[in-house]
Structure formats: C-alpha cells, structure tokens
C-alpha cells in the first residue's frame, strides 16, 4: 500500500508545532464577555437564595429562569439540570452565571448562595439508588463451582481519575441567525448540538456547533461540553454578545467528570488443570449525582469484566450507584480499565493459589478463534489473545526474570486484556453515523463530525481515503468541524473513529471513484458540477446483539493487548519505580504506525498514573486536591522506556483491516504493575498503589 501503513505528515502537525494553531483561549471576538459559573458550596441540600453584590455596571446574569427550553443537559436520561433550580445534588453544581467584559470585574463580583444542607451519600455501597443494573449470564455458575477444585475470591478497588487534558474545557458562544453558535474544545459536536436544541428550544438549523483546535479530550470533553456550551449560550443570548468561558485547572478538576471509582468482586472456580470453570463477578461503579453516561460505562465495564478468557459458566452483575459527588463520566477505556484491573490482578492470585505460572494459567484459558465470551460472542480469526501473550513473554524474557528476581525487591508482572471497538451492542446501529467526501479541484475533502484532539484522526482518515482513491495523501483535505457543514458521524469516542467512521469514508471513496471513472477531479467538476458523496454506517450482517438478554456480539471486534511492567520497590521509601514497560498490541492494521504507537505509549502512561500516582481525594464530596501540585500525574521522568510492539491481524469489516486502538492500552497498565508488585512481595488490591499502600502490603507479608 502506498499511503496506509506509512508515516505521513500529520495534517495539523505544522500548525501545532509552530504555534499557529488557535485554541479557544487564543480567540477574541468583538464585544466579547467572559463568563463565570457560581457553584454549589455543599454536596446535598436545597438552594434557598442567591445574593449578588456585583460592584458595578456591565454584568449579565443568568439563572434557571432564563432558560427558554428545558432545564436539562440532554444525554441518556434528562435528569441533570443545566442550572440548579432548588435541589443541590453535588458540590460544585452550577447554580448561577455571570458575565462581564473585564475578567477582574467578573472575579471581584460577589455572589453568595444561601443553602439548606441535606444528608449526603458518599459511599456507593450505602447508596439506596442504582442508575442501572446489568446481568450477564452464561452457562450455570452453580454447576461450575461444583466442578471446581479450588475457589478463589477477592475484592479490588480503583479510585477516581482525572483526565488532565493539557487544555481544560472552554467554549465561546455567540448569537447568530436568530439562534446560537458555539465554538469549543470538544469531542462530540453533535452531542452539544442536541443539548442546545433542548435547552434553548431551537430547531436544528438555528444551532451551529464548531470545534476549535482541541488540546486533548480523553473523555473529559465527551459529555461535559454540553453543560458548558449551555452556560455560555445562555449568557450570550441574554447579553446579545459573544461569551467565552474557559475553566482554569482548579475548576476543571473540581467541577467536571472523572473516571468512575469501582469496587469489583470476583469469585472464581478453577479446575485442577487450571481451567476456569466458574466466574462470578460483581461490579459496583460510583456514578455520582446524575445518570450522565453511567449506564453505558457500566455496560462496557461488565462486558469486559470476565477478561479475554473462555469459561463455560459466567455470571456478571453490575450496578452504577448514585452518590452526592460530581457525576463521573467518560474516560478513555470507559469502565474496562476498572474491571480488567480487577480481573487481571485476580488471575495472578489464582495462579498463586494454584502454584501455577501466571503465563501458563493465561495460556490455558485465553480465548481462541471459535470460543465465546461471557455474552456469547464467537471469536473469529482475529482473536489474538495467545499471540500478544506469547510475543510479550518472549520479548521481555518473562520466565527468566520471574525466576531470577524472586525475593530481590524487583518485580515483573503482566496483564492480558482486550478492548471492544465501537459503541457497545446495538449502539452503532442506533447512531447511524454519516460521513461524506466532497470533490475538490485538487482531490477530495473529508466531511465528518469526528474531531481531532491530538490522536491523529484527520491524518488517518485522509490516509484511508487517499489509499482507496489511489491518490496522493496531499490531495485529501479535511474540513473543519462545523455542524452547519459536516454530517453527524457520531461522537469521537469508544475507539470508533478510525474503524467505524474510517470505514464509512472508505465506502464514500469507493463510490466517488466509481462516479469519476477516468475523469480527473477538475474535469469532472467542469463537466458535471459539484459532487458530494455521503454514506451511512452499514452494520455487518454477521454482527448481532440482543439488548434485552445482553447476549450476542457486544462489539464488531476486539483489539488485544498484553502489557508487561518491570519495576523495583525502593527499600527506603516503598516507591515503585518502573524500569521498563512493554506493550504488545494487536490492532488489525496500523493505518499510521507512529500515531498508533503514540496512542499506545500515551495510554500506557495514563495507565501508569492510574496504577501508582493519581488519586482524586474527596472531602465532603469536594475534590480536596484540585491542583497539579497535589494531584500527581506521571511526567517523562516518572515514565520508563515504553516498548511498543504492534501486531496486525485484519478485522474483516475494518478499513484495510483496522480496529480501534485509542482505549486499549489503558486497560492493561494497572494490572501489569500490580502483578509486578505482587511478584516483588506486595499484595495490592487497591489502586493507586501509593508508597503507603505498598509499605502496608509489604509489612503485612513480613
């Protein structure tokens, strides 16, 4: 292939490297005001009154009475208000908005909220309310346990994780055409579009949403911009001027979504020969104060909970619980990192209980083509669990280090995992995404609603189109994301952009090529006038899912990974220091090998932070460490050399065989590290594995 699989220049690379790229906070509009959000000081209670001492003229203020449509942030359930009316469900809940030309005047304005406190619930296990319950059943668990020679139980906990995108959330909204226009740092322009239609009672053509250059998303800009854009839009409509709101780091950390904390309980029956004969798994997610995306995060969490293993008898029960905390939401991995951390840490405990080698235990149980998952999804030829495992073991000389390092304070551990690409179950069918190609004088222009946020979507899409058309990469341009111009290609989430939207674009390119015949673009345009080819997602006939029974093909396919962590535990400080990290992934086809490796390295680094450092501490439902001084993420110095190995076994329905890669690498880092700590002598069942927890675990075992 000429373009696919090559390291072509990133479409937006030059602008970013030279500083020409313009982010929301770089932009000014004439007459623009700055907006500020006044937030609830308590986690639970009632708003009694709002007192304002603005200290001068020129302010625009907004409360829920100014909302022309429905006071909700429209998503799965319409339960979350855009602005509090009376009931306060979490600290930092938005109550009141003010805007002013001068940032100083804005910050000096005093708004005090009078609240009547209620009794909050912070412990998900004590919560009376579940947003969603899921049950996945395969075979007969009781029968499985009856056959078991050994039963291993355990509870594993994972904490809150903040996205820490380099650019925080920000938007500018302005009145336009009798409606509203929004330009923002965001992942899902059509989510914002829909939310604004509901909030402002506007028809679709009166709402325009554009994406500014976006400095990272990781899920933190999936659902939250719908809230933020609503705020800016309300201020803009009332003041009849452009309004910009950009969060600072503290507001971004304290007020926006995070990764769901999870409690995962395993009870596993194992036969003498190491076969898993029963897996009984309970998943409890802390959903926070509103439904937001918790049901679908729980769904992905549960589907991935049994791991990439074949077991005839499986039961997975999941709940997403209400608590009086900031709603937890989308975060790279979307539930799968939590449950696969638990599952893979549990596998090493099973190996230990059996006196078995962790690699051998996984080899015995790993899914192979023809096997079925917990939902009954049958594996095809691109099931690569054994391949990634064997490659990782060979590359790292795992058995040798495992033996040599025993009792030395050094440790090596691995995790085997998978990640389903695209929306779960019938999600892609319901989304019915569209993408389009427009013929230009020089070639073609890609029109999609998917967003570039650093992952390289503009580049990989252009490669797919160029390859299919047989044209040079440079002949393909990518339109700016503007809902007035581009179709709804679904949200830029769920590792779906390359595999799903890339697939639609490939279909567009095929049709464009057929229409052109032997004509050059220029000649075609001259003879026939403008040409735009729009295609919709076509669901493969051999991928079927039942929403009622939770059975069938949960995803079109899975990407596979095996990650290996090598570390030592400092004998003085109990810090775990990674010396090497190896990621072997099978992703169908790496459309752009460097971008794909970038996804793997970035995801691994985020997983390393999740495993060892990152802990959002809540006190009375508020984040106590909402700053980068106290919420610690790994920097390059804390990150070891990451060796990335990409294997390719094409997915039959992916563009040039590509699967999703964005989320996969986060899933395995935490369990690989925790298993390496186990090898070094520390029994860790809760992440992050801070020095205190490692010390506690090591002292307990001595």
């Amino acid at each position, binding site marked *: 292939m000429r373009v696919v699989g090559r390291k072509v220049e990133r479409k937006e690379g030059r602008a970013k490297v030279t500083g020409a790229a313009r982010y929301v906070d770089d932009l000014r509009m004439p007459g623009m005001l700055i907006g500020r959000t006044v937030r609830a000081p308590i986690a639970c209670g009632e708003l009694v009154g709002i007192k304002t001492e603005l200290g001068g003229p020129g302010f625009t203020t907004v409360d829920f009475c100014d909302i022309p449509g429905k006071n909700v942030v429209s998503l799965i359930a319409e339960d979350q208000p855009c602005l509090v009316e009376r009931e306060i469900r979490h600290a930092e809940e938005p109550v009141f908005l003010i805007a002013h030309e001068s940032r100083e005047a804005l910050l000096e304005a005093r708004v005090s909220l009078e609240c009547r406190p209620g009794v909050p619930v912070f412990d998900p296990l004590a919560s009376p309310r579940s947003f969603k319950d899921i049950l996945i059943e395969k075979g007969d668990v009781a029968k499985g346990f009856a056959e078991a020679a050994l039963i291993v139980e355990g509870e594993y906990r994972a904490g809150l994780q903040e996205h820490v995108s380099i650019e925080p959330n920000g938007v500018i909204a302005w009145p336009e055409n009798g409606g509203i226009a929004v330009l923002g740092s965001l992942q899902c322009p059509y989510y914002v579009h829909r939310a604004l239609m509901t909030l402002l009672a506007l028809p679709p053509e009166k709402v325009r949403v554009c994406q500014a250059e976006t400095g990272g998303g990781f899920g933190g800009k999936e659902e939250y911009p719908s809230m933020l854009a609503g705020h800016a839009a309300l201020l803009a409509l009332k003041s009849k001027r452009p309004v910009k709101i950009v969060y600072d780091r503290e507001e971004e950390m304290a007020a926006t979504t995070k990764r769901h904390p999870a409690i995962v309980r395993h009870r596993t029956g194992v036969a003498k020969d190491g076969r898993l004969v029963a897996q009984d798994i309970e998943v409890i997610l802390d959903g926070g104060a509103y439904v937001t995306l918790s049901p679908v995060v729980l769904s992905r969490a549960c589907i991935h909970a049994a791991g990439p293993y074949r077991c005839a008898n499986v039961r997975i029960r999941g709940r997403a619980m209400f608590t009086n905390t900031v709603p937890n939401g989308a975060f790279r991995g979307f539930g799968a990192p939590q449950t696969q951390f638990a599952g893979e840490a549990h596998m090493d405990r099973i190996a230990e209980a059996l006196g078995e080698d962790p690699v051998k235990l996984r080899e015995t149980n790993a899914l192979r083509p023809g096997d079925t998952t917990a939902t009954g999804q049958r594996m095809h030829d691109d099931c690569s669990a054994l391949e990634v495992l064997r490659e990782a073991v060979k590359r790292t000389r795992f058995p040798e280090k495992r033996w040599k390092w025993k009792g030395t304070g050094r440790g090596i551990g691995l995790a085997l995992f998978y990640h389903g690409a695209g929306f779960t179950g019938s999600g892609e069918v319901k989304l019915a995404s569209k993408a389009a190609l427009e013929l230009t004088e020089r070639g073609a222009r890609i029109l999609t609603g998917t967003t570039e946020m650093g992952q390289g979507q503009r580049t990989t899409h252009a490669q797919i189109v160029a390859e299919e058309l047989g044209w040079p990469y440079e002949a393909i341009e990518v339109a700016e994301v503007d809902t007035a111009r581009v179709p709804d290609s679904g949200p830029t989430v769920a590792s779906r952009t390359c595999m799903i939207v890339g697939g639609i674009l490939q279909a567009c390119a095929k049709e464009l090529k057929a229409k052109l015949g032997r004509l050059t673009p220029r000649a075609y345009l001259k003879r026939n006038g403008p040409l735009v080819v729009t295609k919709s997602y076509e669901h493969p006939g051999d991928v079927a899912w039942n929403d009622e029974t939770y059975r069938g093909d949960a995803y079109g396919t899975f990407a596979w990974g095996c990650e290996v962590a090598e570390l030592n535990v400092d004998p*003085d400080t109990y810090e775990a220091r990674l010396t090497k990290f190896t990621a072997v992934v099978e992703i169908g086809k790496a459309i752009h090998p460097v971008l794909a490796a970038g996804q793997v390295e970035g995801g691994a680094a985020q997983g390393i932070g999740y495993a060892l450092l990152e802990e959002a501490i809540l006190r009375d439902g508020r984040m106590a460490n909402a700053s980068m001084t106290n919420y610690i993420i790994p920097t390059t110095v*804390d990150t070891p050399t990451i060796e990335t190995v990409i294997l390719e076994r094409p997915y039959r329905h992916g563009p040039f065989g590509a699967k999703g890669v964005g989320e996969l690498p986060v899933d395995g880092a935490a369990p690989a590290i925790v298993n390496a700590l186990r090898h070094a002598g520390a029994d860790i069942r809760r992440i992050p594995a801070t020095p205190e927890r490692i*010390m506690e675990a090591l002292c307990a075992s001595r």
Partner: protein
Amino acid sequence: MTSPFTFWDARTAEEAAALLSKKGAMALGGGVDLLGEMKEGIRAPEHIVNLRSIPGLDKIQKTDRGWRVGATALLTDIADHADLRKDLPGFAESAEAVATPQIRNQGTIGGNLAQRPRCWYYRAAEFACVKKGGKGCPAEKGENRYLAIFGDGPCHIVHPSDCAPMLVALDARLFLRGPDGARDLPIADFYELPSKNALCEFTLKPGEFIEAVEIPTALPRSTYVKIREKDSFDFAIAACAIAGKIDGDHFTDARVVLGGVAPVPWRSVTAEANLRKNTIADAVEPASNSATDGARPMSQNAWKIPMTKAAVARAIRSFLPR
C-alpha cells in the same frame, strides 16, 4: 484575581527598604511564589517592589568568610556555579532540587527562603485558618497527609524550601536590610515556629528584606537528599540536609537538618550525635532511626516517618566510599 498595585523598580537597597515601608508593600524577586499567591487571592499587595532591578544584588562571590550570595541570585546560577559547588556541594544540590528548570531560571534564593507554605488550606482562599489570621487548623480534622510531623501546631504547615534546611545545616547567616539599616542573623533564627508566630514562618521587621546570605566553608562535606512523589518536580515529602567534616571513616562534626516535615527547617541533634558517635557505615541505622524522635504525626501522615528516616539514611550513605 489581582487588584491594582503600583510597581516599583528599586535601584538601590536603601530605596527598596524605603519603598517596602509603604503600607501594603511587598518585595518581588522572581515572582514565582508571590504571583501564585496573588492569583489565588491570598495576597493583594498595594505596592510591589522589584528587587531584581538593584544592580549587583544577584552576585555570587567568594569572600574571606566563605560565600556571599545576593538575594536575587537565580537558583540556576547557584546550581551551576562550579566553584561554589566544590566548596558547598549540598547547597548547589539543594538549589538544583527546587521545582523545574523554568522555575529555577526565574526563582531567586531570597524568594526561595521567604516563600510561603503550600498547605491546601492555606492556599485556598475560602479557609480562614490560623495562618491567615483566622482560627484553628482545618487540617487537624481534614487532609493532612502532606503536613508536618514535628512542630506541635497550632499550624501544621511544612516549610517548602529546599535551600533553607541546607543553609541551616551549613550554619549560614542572613543579611537583612530595612529602613533602619542592615542587620544579620543565623539563618536558623530567621525561621519561627507557629507557636511563636502563626501568621508567618520568618521574622522580618516592616520594610525589611533579605539582601544576601553568607555561607561559611567550615563544613566541607555536605549533601541534600529529597524524597518526592514525582521525580520530575515536586515539593519534598521529606528531605535531609547534612553538613559536616569527615576524618577517615567517621564524621568529626555533623549537622543534620530535615526539610518537608516541620513548619521550619528541623534540626535533629540526636541524629547528629549518633552520626558523630559511629563510623559512617554504622551510623546509618541509629542516626536515621533517631531522626524522627519526638515526631507527632497527624491522622494521615504517619507514613512520613519512614520516608524521613529513608531520606536521612540515603543522605548518610552518600558519604560512604563507592
């Protein structure tokens, strides 16, 4: 949030002292700490007096009493000064341990010694704690995992400076300038426990500022060991500064000062005694274990005790022949 202020470029130390005597005046070195405090709404000076405009105040020079380092000398320049590092290796190490290259390129030694604490409650404008003239310490029943294990309150901050403990160990003197002239004092006396003054960690009379620090070269062996959560840049969880003289396999003179564990640089005389009593190799255990004698951890920070011992042990081990 920043309220309006008048910015003055001082041209001489005398002029700076006069300007700093104005109501609401504050001295500006590199601005690393002051600007952060202003943005966080903890401080709103009416006058900012720039000290970096005073010619020669950033000089690093060897005198007959040792090394004299002007208040506006950059941390980078201290860390990179080859001759100073030969005489005072621990001081150069402590300057290098501060934050990031960017901050060291901007931050001054004066600012480092007079920087304010990083306690979450102090830094959050909504808590009126004892350090800000209010009542009590919310950390006592709140988040205290990074706070002091020594000092006994009523405020439990840890002093954030890396250079201060090292300079206390090296027995440095601070030279202060004020409207009534100049004075100097041992740097250990510059810092005060909260029981004496909860509002501020150091003693400066109205209008006074740090003009220079002088470090004798009488203790030729020194080191600074800092334990932090992030390896790239972070404040100390615990740190240990040791300065002394070595004869063969043992210290003949030794000063051990802890950082990151008390509201002021915390000297451990028991550790020093253990260090002098034994050979260096044999001193590691008793000296590091006794360094935390008298520590009174709070609800969440007992883990800092082994971390402190680790810092001391590492510092002592660094003097062992390799």
